[in-house]
Structures are given as structure tokens and as C-alpha cells.
């Protein structure tokens, strides 16, 4: 059975791939951060996200029952089979865009983990409970940068506003519901994404306002990464992430 035909597997893969792809993006900055301290901080966050991805991918592999483990799912699927929201795969851009993108996603995760702890899937509920605390810290740390740069110098404010104008339309997708989400909601696997919007906005909008940023008007644009239709950025990201595993199949440390 193809994963695409199993809504339960799909639902888990969407979460797994969001964490994995964002982890890969943030780890691009390892050793290249603006200073040693934020470099370590962002790399720590990348590692936490990678930890979430590993648990979720392993769980998806078990549910799928095709013998694919976390490595098979991470390294041997192509871009069209990745189900992360497009937001996660966009290029890092400057430090403002890097922090704001990650903040938009982890604050969405924070709202979602809270709900998923009541999931009918006990393994998913346990992963949500474990991830909840680290995500709270990610929100605090990244939110702090959004605030500092937004309400900072003229240069940092302009960059953060530019990042917000660019990224905000991609957050629409986080609250889109389709057949997979409806199937998940029907069996108590997880909430309909559309029901997360109010909590997310209650968390994010006050921070953006405090950061003296103007929230862009809602636009009809909806990205489609969660359905496997991605921006061109994902192919490049996966090329780098998967090249070693594919060049040396079955290799061990």
C-alpha cells in the first residue's frame, strides 16, 4: 500500500517532515551563525527538531508496515513524497528570515502538541508530550529574536518586516484542512488544522505587534507542501541531505 493511501501514515508524515526539513534548514547555519552563542542555540533547536522527526518517522514506518525505518523514510523518498508545509523548506535568507520562519512553525507546533497529547494514537500523544517542553523553549528563544530585531535598529526592523511580508502568506497552509486531516479528526488522531488558527494568532500576533511589525493583510495564496507539491527549494535541500546516504547505501559508521 502506498503511504498516500493511508491517512494515518500521511498525517504522521506531515508532522515528521515538517520537523525534519526545518531541522535541515537550521543545521545549515551550524558553524555559520552570526556569533558563537546564537549559532549553538539554533543548532540545539535543529537537533531537537531532528529528534522529533526521528520519533515521528519511526512511528510512521511502523504504521505503514512496509519495513521502512526512519532512515529509509528520510533518505530514500523523493521531494514529491515529502509532506512538510512549504514554509519549512523555504531558504533561510538572512538571520531575520531564519528566525521568523522557525518561530512561525514552532509556535504552530506548540498549539498542536497541546492538542495532540489527547490523540487516540498513544505513540503520537507520547511524542507530543515529550516535544511540548522543548517547543516552548524554541518559541521563547526565536520569539525573542523576532522581538529584538523587529523592535531594534532601522536596519533590523526593515529586514524583519521584509521577512514577515515574505513568509506570512506561507502560514496559510498551516491551517488548511483536507481529506487526510478530516480523517484524522474523525478518529481523534488530531485536531483539524483550521481549529488551530485562533490559538496560533493569539500567541503570534501580540508578539509581532510588540516587535513594531505590521502584520500583512491575508492573501488568497495557499502553498501545497503538505500535499507533496513543493517549491523548488525542497529538491535542493533534499539533494544535500540525502547525497551521502544514497552514494553509500547501507553504510554504517
Amino acid at each position, binding site marked *: 500500500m502506498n503511504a498516500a493511501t493511508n491517512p494515518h501514515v500521511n498525517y504522521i508524515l506531515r508532522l515528521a517532515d515538517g520537523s525534519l526539513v526545518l531541522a535541515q534548514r537550521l543545521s545549515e547555519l551550524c558553524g555559520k551563525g552570526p*556569533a558563537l552563542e*546564537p549559532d*549553538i542555540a539554533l543548532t540545539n533547536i535543529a537537533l531537537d527538531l531532528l529528534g522529533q522527526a526521528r520519533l515521528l518517522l519511526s512511528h510512521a514506518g511502523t504504521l505503514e508496515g512496509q519495513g521502512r525505518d526512519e532512515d529509509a523514510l528520510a533518505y530514500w523518498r523523493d521531494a514529491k513524497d515529502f509532506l512538510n508545509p512549504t514554509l519549512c523548506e523555504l531558504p533561510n535568507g538572512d538571520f531575520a528570515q531564519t528566525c521568523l520562519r522557525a518561530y512561525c512553525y514552532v509556535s504552530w507546533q506548540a498549539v498542536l502538541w497541546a492538542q495532540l497529547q489527547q490523540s487516540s494514537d498513544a505513540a503520537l500523544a507520547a511524542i507530543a508530550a515529550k516535544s511540548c517542553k522543548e517547543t516552548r523553549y524554541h518559541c521563547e528563544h526565536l520569539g525573542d529574536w523576532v522581538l529584538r530585531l523587529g523592535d531594534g535598529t532601522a536596519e533590523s526592523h526593515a529586514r524583519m518586516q521584509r521577512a514577515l511580508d515574505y513568509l506570512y502568506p506561507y502560514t496559510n497552509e498551516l491551517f488548511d484542512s483536507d481529506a487526510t486531516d478530516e480523517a484524522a479528526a474523525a478518529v481523534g488522531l488530531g485536531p483539524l488544522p483550521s481549529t488551530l488558527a485562533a490559538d496560533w494568532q493569539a500567541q503570534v500576533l501580540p508578539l509581532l505587534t510588540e516587535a513594531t511589525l505590521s502584520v500583512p493583510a491575508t492573501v488568497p495564496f495557499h502553498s501545497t507542501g503538505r500535499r507533496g507539491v513543493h517549491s523548488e527549494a525542497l529538491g535542493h535541500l533534499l539533494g544535500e541531505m540525502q547525497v551521502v546516504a544514497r552514494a553509500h547505501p547501507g553504510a554504517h559508521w
Partner: protein
Amino acid sequence: MSDRKEWPLWEVFLRSKAGLDHKHCGSLHAADGAMALQMARDVYTRRQEGVSIWVVRADQIVASAPDDKAALFDPMADKIYRHPTFYELPDEVNHM
């Protein structure tokens, strides 16, 4: 940018799970105290080293000068009567 300023230096003190007092563990650069705390969490507690963090701006610490070492500390070398080693403790008092 030409007017870029270095972040000030902060000294970091951690209290470990077993320890009662905060111990100096290192230093880092941060723009202010709140950022220094977060940075300290990421740089110095990655392996669960601490349950509490203090950060202090390095330039706020008043320190003794190494050159004053002789004047400050050497006079104590011949005052062994300041050590409580001349008392005989009863066996019941084990952990002094």
C-alpha cells in the same frame, strides 16, 4: 557595518543538581541579561549540567589584582592557629 559593537561579556554561574551553590562555569557574549540567560542555557546546560543559572556582566565584577597576591594572601601562611585543627572532635561528630 563600521559601527557594529561587540556584545558585552557575561560570566556564567551554574548550580548543579547536587550542588548547593552556583559555580563559575565560563563566559559568553550577549546583548543583555535576558539574552545571556538564554545563551547560557544553550552553551552550558546542553547535558543537563544545571538547575539554576546566574549571569553577571564581567565588567561589573570587582576583582583582586594578581600583583597584590603577596600582600593579600601571604601573611596568612604562618598563622596556623586560625585553622580549627587543634580541637579534638568527639566521634559522634562525623561530618565537620
